[in-house]
């Protein structure tokens, strides 16, 4: 094995970095900057060619990274004992402490026609527009659940795209019933209001308790069917109507990216939004000593929370590696308060924008659930109700969902949820973990092994 690269300054006694941070989004950047300010030798790794993650997406995050060895283009695919990070195409990196800040990606629910070209996630619409200057369509429907739908729609409008409708499955008026939680995250409400103003200015219908139930088209999407949902998340009979469009951006919140910490044995829990997240203590340490987590992997909560968590974890690992905390008592208190407030708001957000309970009713027997392996609903149903599969592992073995290229990243949540429902029990962390365990975290060539 090659020795870890040593930077020019402050080699730690063991010849390793004090801390290696995986993921350079808002959380990872804050961890790295804070730990480096305390005198730690820090390596910051990210698979992308630039820092910033999906949030900053190539824009300057404005974080001072002096003293940080920034390793972009570093897709970490495996962690070996001694906290050695193996990356594709370059030397491994070793550290005394690891911080996972690997973020999240769009969570999607299957529906008839969701595999038609032109049906994409809100994240894809944002990546194409902000990253490459290419709008996802000329007449776009934005749908799903969560506050992220708003900047996606507003961004498209500002690029001159016709947004034919924004359909939010949740009921955002429920925010008004928790004024204390909203007051703790005032910036978020302001931001949402400014996006809603953009929508209003362009006369874009913003319909809450509405969902895209199906996409129609031949070689690509040409229309969607939109329906109204009742308070329980079930479809209101007779409310379905077609909306013509040439692209749809649809997603229901986010799924944290956990393969590396799971491979190390870090314990997980089911969060209020139904996501599998890492269990962490007050200091952001996972159940594996020396392994920390910050940002979306500890619970989906947005960039502001990720940054606060990152600063706290950065200070924590600095102290754990024998450095003085770079945070004053006052700053520490302020950050801890802010973290509590933002976590309270995130829990509220999860309740308001929960995936609609009625989504399995929109499926037909032939709707594809696993896009990689072309597994339709009826094969999963047969595995559960006919062949007696009681959990996702058995379903996987019987009909292959989650065993293709994406390794269950896309169909893991829906297959786990359908399996639990058809067994007549609630979704558990164990259901999701079946689809989240991926010992090799990134596709590698045999030559990399």
């Amino acid at each position: 094995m090659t020795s870890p690269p040593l930077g020019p300054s402050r080699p730690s006694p063991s010849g390793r970095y004090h801390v290696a941070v995986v993921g350079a989004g808002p959380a990872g950047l804050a961890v790295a900057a804070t730990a480096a300010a305390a005198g730690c030798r820090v390596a910051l790794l990210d698979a992308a060619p630039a820092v910033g993650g999906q949030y900053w997406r190539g824009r300057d995050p404005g974080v001072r990274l002096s003293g940080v060895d920034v390793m972009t283009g570093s897709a970490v695919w495996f962690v070996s004992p001694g906290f050695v990070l193996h990356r594709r195409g370059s030397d491994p990196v070793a550290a005394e402490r690891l911080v996972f800040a690997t973020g999240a990606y769009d969570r999607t629910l299957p529906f008839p026609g969701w595999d038609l070209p032109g049906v994409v996630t809100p994240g894809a619409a944002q990546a194409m527009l902000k990253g490459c200057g290419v709008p996802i369509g000329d007449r776009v429907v934005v749908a799903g659940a969560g506050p992220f739908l708003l900047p996606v729609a507003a961004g498209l409008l500002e690029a001159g795209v016709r947004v034919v409708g924004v359909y939010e499955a949740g009921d955002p008026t429920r925010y008004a019933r928790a004024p204390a939680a909203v007051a703790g995250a005032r910036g978020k409400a302001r931001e949402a209001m400014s996006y809603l103003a953009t929508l209003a200015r362009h006369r874009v219908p913003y319909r809450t308790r509405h969902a895209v139930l199906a996409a129609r088209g031949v070689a690509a999407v040409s229309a969607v069917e939109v329906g109204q949902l009742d308070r329980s998340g079930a479809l209101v009979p007779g409310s379905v109507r077609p909306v013509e469009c040439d692209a749809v951006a649809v997603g229901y919140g986010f799924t944290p990216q956990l393969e590396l910490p799971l491979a190390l044995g870090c314990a997980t829990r089911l969060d209020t939004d139904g996501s599998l997240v890492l269990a962490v203590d007050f200091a952001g340490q996972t159940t594996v000593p020396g392994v920390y987590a910050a940002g979306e992997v500890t619970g989906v909560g947005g960039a502001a929370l990720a940054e606060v968590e990152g600063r706290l974890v950065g200070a924590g690992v600095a102290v754990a590696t024998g450095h003085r905390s770079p945070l004053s008592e006052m700053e520490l208190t302020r950050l801890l308060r802010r973290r509590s407030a933002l976590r309270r708001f995130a829990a509220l957000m999860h309740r308001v924008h929960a995936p609609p309970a009625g989504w399995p009713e929109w499926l037909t027997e032939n709707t594809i659930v696993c896009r990689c392996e072309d597994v339709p609903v009826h094969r999963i149903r047969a595995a559960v109700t006919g062949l007696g599969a009681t959990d996702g592992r058995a379903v996987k073995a019987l009909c292959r969902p989650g065993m293709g290229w994406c390794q269950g990243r896309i169909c893991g949540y829906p297959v786990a949820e359908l399996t639990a429902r058809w067994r007549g029990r609630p979704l558990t962390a164990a259901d999701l973990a079946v689809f989240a365990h991926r010992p090799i975290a990134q596709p590698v060539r045999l030559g990399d092994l």
Partner: protein
Amino acid sequence: MSASGHLIFDGRRVPVKPGQTVAAALWAAGIRSWRTTRETGAPRGVFCGIGVCFDCLVTIDGTPNQRACLAPASPGMVVTTQLGTGR
């Protein structure tokens, strides 16, 4: 980053702008799919857009299974529709 010019997609010239991925260049030219699935032969293009779903796999300069949403587009590149497992 990559320069301006054209890539060739299934014999057709597609403009490339600096900083674009292969997926973005194809999409900007009105191309919505560049792969068919193994079992049903259904057309696929961009879905997640950030390298997670592998729906956008494409053959670039003879190498199959490249994620079009991550691969930077460059002039002169030869991109071909990928059928099934990658031929």
